[in-house]
C-alpha cells in the first residue's frame, strides 16, 4: 500500500522570515527548522524539512510576519 500523501504543505518565504523560531517551537510534527540561509534582512531563515506537514496552521498564526508563511491543504479527492 502506497503511503498516504501529507495533509498539508508549508512554504516559507525566506526573505520575509526574521528567524525568531516561534514557528519551529509550535509545530506539532516538528517539520520546520532553522537553516543556514542568511536572508537579505540578515536573519537565518527557517525552512520546511520536506514532509510531514499537516496543514494545522499553528505556525501561520504564530508567525508575526504577514507574508512569511503560506499553508496549503490537501484537496479532498473527488
Amino acid at each position, binding site marked *: 500500500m502506497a503511503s498516504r500523501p501529507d495533509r498539508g504543505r508549508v512554504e516559507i518565504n525566506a526573505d520575509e522570515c*526574521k528567524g525568531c523560531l516561534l514557528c519551529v517551537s509550535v509545530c*506539532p510534527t516538528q517539520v520546520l527548522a532553522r537553516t543556514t540561509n542568511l536572508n537579505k534582512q540578515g536573519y537565518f531563515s527557517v525552512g520546511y524539512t520536506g514532509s510531514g506537514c499537516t496543514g494545522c496552521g499553528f505556525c501561520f498564526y*504564530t508567525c508575526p*510576519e504577514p507574508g512569511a508563511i503560506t499553508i496549503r491543504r490537501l484537496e479532498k479527492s473527488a
Partner: protein
Amino acid sequence: MSAPNYKPHLSRSEIFYPTFERKSGNKEVTHYCPGCGHGSLHKMIAESIQDLGINDRTIFVSPVGCSVFAYYYFDTGNIQAPHGRAPAVGTGAQRARPHSVVISYQGDGDLAAIGLNEILQAANRGEKMVVFFVNNAIYGMTGGQMAPTTLPGMRTTTTPMGRDTRLAGNPTRMCELISTLDAPIYVARGCLASPKHTMRTRKLVRKALKMQTEGKGFCFVEVLSACPTGWGMQPVDSHQWILDNMVPQFPLEIFVDKTDLDHDDYIPPKAPSPETFHEVIRIADAANQMAPAQPETKYKDPRIKVAGFGGQGVLLLGLGLAQCGMMEGRHVTWLPSYGPEMRGGTAHCHVNIADEEIGSPLISKPTVLVAMNQPSLTKFEGELVEGALVIMNSSMVPNKPKRKDLELLELPATAIAEELGNARAANMVVLGAYAGYTGVLSLETCLESLKTLIKRQALVDLNVKAITKGFEFGKAARG
C-alpha cells in the same frame, strides 16, 4: 492515482498593503522585532476584517508606541492618534461616520498610563468601537521602561532592581477595571503564547469585530503579547515567560459578554452645522446686523480688561461689549477669568474687538481698563499700555491711578445707577459711557444688544436708561 492537489489554505491577508511603503527599511516586512506579538495580532485582525468584508468601512486608529506605524500595513481607513488618545479619536470617527467599524489599537503604556482616562471614559460611554489592547508589560518603543502592567519584581530600565510594588504600585488589570462599568458589551483577555491560546485569541478578535459590524457596542480585547526586545529574551523563551508569569497575574477570561442581549441602534445626533449654529445657541442674526460705528483711530481695535467685585456685573459688561462689537460686524472675543479670585474678591474678563482676526483672547497689555472698584485699578494699572484709557467707577474708586500717562474717564457709574433705581445697572452705565466717549460702538447697538443680554423683561427699561445716561455722560466728557 493522480498527484495530490494542494489548495491554498492560509496566506498573506489582502487587508495588508501589497508592499509597506515605509520611509526606511525592507518594504516586504513589518518594522517589528523578531517574535513581537504585534505582528501576530495584526494578522488576526487582518484576517477577520477580510472574512467579514469590512475593510471599506473600517477606521483603524493607531496609537503612539511600537504599533504607531499600523497605517503602513492595513489597507483600511487610518488615523494615528496622539499618545493615549486613540479612544477619543475613535469616538470622533465613530460619531462622524456612525456605520463605520472603529478599531482603537493600543499598547499598555498608551492605554493604561497616559491614556487611562480616555479609555475609561470611552468604555463608560459605550462607544461603538473595538479596542485591541496589547499588554506586553513594558514600554516597548521607548526602550523598555516600566508600564502600569509591569509585573511585581520585573526588571525594566526604570525599575532596574525590579518593580517594587510599595514604591510603584501593582500591575493594572484593565479588563477587570473595565468590567466594573455598565456599558461595555464584551471584555475578554487572551494571549499569544501557545497555539492553543493563539487560536482562542483569534476567536476573541473575530467576535469583537463582528459585534462592530452589527453596531452593537464597546468591546475590549486584551492580548498578552511578547516583547522579546524589551524583555531581553529569545522569542521562544518569551512565550514561556508569558505563560509562567503574565497569565497568573492577568487571568485569561471572558469578563463580560452581553453580546446576545438586544441593543438599541442609537446613533448620536449630529453636531449642528455651521449654518444652523446661530439658531442652536440662539444668537440668530446677531452678527453684522448694525451699521459699524467709525471711531477715532486711537480707540480702534481695543483690548479691554473689565474688572470689579463679583456681583458688579463685570462679566456681563464684557459680554455686552463683545456682543455689540459682533453686531457691528467686528471680530470679537470674550474671556472670563475664573479662579479662586472669583470667590468674594475681584472678577475680571478680557474683551477684544477688532477689524482683523484675533490671535489670542487673552490680553496681557490692555488698551482699556474698566475699574469698577479700587482693588481692580491697583491690580491692573501696571499692565496697561502707555496712554491707555482708564474708565474708573469714581463712586467706588477714591484713589486715581498713580501713572501719569493714562487717559482718565471718571464716571460715577454706581451713583448714576442708584439714581435710576438700582445700583446693579452700573455696568450698563459703563457700556454706554464707553460707547459715548470712544465712539467704538453706537448707542443704537448698545440698546439693541439688551435683547440678548437681559433675559428679564422687567429690567430692560432700567438698562435702557442706564446705557443712555452713560452714553450722554461719556459723550459730554469727551467734549
